[in-house]
């Protein structure tokens, strides 16, 4: 078990990818706090998974402070912070309202900032023992190359990438490693909503046809499962990754390794 004795805090912990990370961390022996807006999260389903649930809006600083105080009181330490909470507005900049823009940045960027800021004192003291503490942010392959009609999302993920490198520089000397995981297409409620959303359904295709079309663009002919992402997050959280910091880890089934494909 790679995370025995460690305490981890996962935001978006009841969502598609977050839930898989929580499950994996538990399996690896960690004490896990699973933070989300509601017990069911974006999957709208509550399973008793063995994690400690924290009701948390990552855009609310007081709630972030309270969450970290609770971790301090109950567990007495924090080794791993995973910022998996995120939202996606499926619009171009012209269609995006200022409120939607601000909300995207509030959750995806400010949320990462706030939880990290208030987790740092705990992470720093965890690292004093010699083993490193680890922050894992959620970027996206969309932070490198754009999908159409996802402007605010692409911009927030680019911001998370830069923030991850900045945090790695600033807090590396304190023993805190910071990395960003950049998933491609992963089978989550967010992806399904993208398939069903206004920007999609082009050419009168069914969701199934759409899913196949997207799979076929991937060199691996699949899109990822949340567990694929959890595999990498687990490694980045573990002491095996003690030399890994400041990097953006693209995990996308080879999607972005190719130049535009020539279709017909």
């Amino acid at each position, binding site marked *: 078990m790679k995370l025995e004795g460690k305490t981890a805090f996962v935001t978006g912990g009841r969502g598609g990818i977050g839930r898989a990370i929580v499950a994996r961390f538990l399996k690896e022996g960690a004490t896990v706090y699973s933070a989300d807006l509601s017990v069911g999260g974006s999957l709208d389903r509550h399973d008793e998974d063995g994690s400690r649930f924290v009701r948390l809006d990552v855009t609310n600083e007081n709630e972030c402070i309270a969450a970290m105080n609770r971790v301090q009181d109950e567990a007495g330490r924090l080794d791993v912070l995973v910022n998996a909470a995120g939202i996606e507005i499926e619009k171009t900049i012209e269609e995006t309202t200022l409120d939607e823009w601000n909300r995207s940045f509030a959750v995806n960027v400010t949320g990462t900032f706030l939880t990290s800021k208030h987790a740092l004192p705990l992470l720093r003291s965890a690292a004093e023992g010699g083993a490193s503490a680890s922050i894992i942010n959620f970027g996206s392959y969309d932070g490198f*190359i754009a*999908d*159409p009609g996802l402007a605010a999302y692409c911009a927030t993920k680019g911001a998370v990438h830069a923030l991850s490198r900045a945090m790695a520089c600033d807090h590396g000397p304190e023993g805190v490693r910071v990395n960003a995981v950049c998933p491609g297409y992963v089978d989550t409620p967010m992806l399904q909503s993208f398939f069903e959303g206004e920007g*999609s359904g082009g050419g009168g295709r069914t969701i199934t046809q759409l899913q196949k079309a997207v799979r076929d*663009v991937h060199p691996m002919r699949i899109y990822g499962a949340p567990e694929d992402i959890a595999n990498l997050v687990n490694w980045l959280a573990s002491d095996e990754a003690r030399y890994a910091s400041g990097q953006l880890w693209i995990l996308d089934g080879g999607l972005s390794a*190719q130049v*535009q494909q*020539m*279709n*017909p």
Partner: protein
Amino acid sequence: MLWWAPMRLKDKKAIVTGGSRGIGRGIVEAFLKEGASVLSCGRSPVPEDFPVACVWMTADVSSAEDMERLAATAGLVDILVNNAGVQVERTVMASTDADWDHVIGVNCKGVFNACRAVLPRMRSGGSIINVGSVSGQAADPGMALYNASKAFVHGLTRSIAVDHGPRVRCNAICPGWVETGMLEAGFALASDPEAARQDALMRHATRRFGRPEDIAAIAVWLASDEAGFATGQLFTVDGGMTAASPISPGIY
């Protein structure tokens, strides 16, 4: 504003390899227009419609001897453009030893040969411009050796910039899809070349492919003194293609 544009490469002497057609030809013509004296080379004799102002030498970049002869003929130069390149449309499994010798010989050893021969004869403030490719950063399917050879060019570009600055600057241009014989050869591989062309157009924010003069424009800038602080970098000019996800535009 002046009614005429001052010539940006006046009094400069340039070598452009592979200048007979395509991107290289575009660069030769742009350099001449900007006032440079240009020497170009290729494996064939001088093409019939070649600009008379440009000196032509029949030479193969994959031959160190030929490149030494080219550099000696040119004498002191300010600009070297390593444009000569070949592509073989095969996967690793399908590639032969002859494919390797051909692609690596021209695209990798050719750039090395030319740089090694020309560098000692380069004036201070000189500029080397290598033609890399977007395929050196992400893979085009079925172009294994070509993709790898362009990644080599990118690596060598950085090394030359680091080793031979401040005397010489070295950058690479990464063209996307440019209307040349090489692009046509790519489409010819598709089951429906015309549909493939339309599909590819939709993947470009510009809704058009590049033209040799688009690449020549950045080459002129990199060759000029305006680019005095630009070195060791890859400059992608691809009509926005690689800014977009490879998901087909027809999917959504």
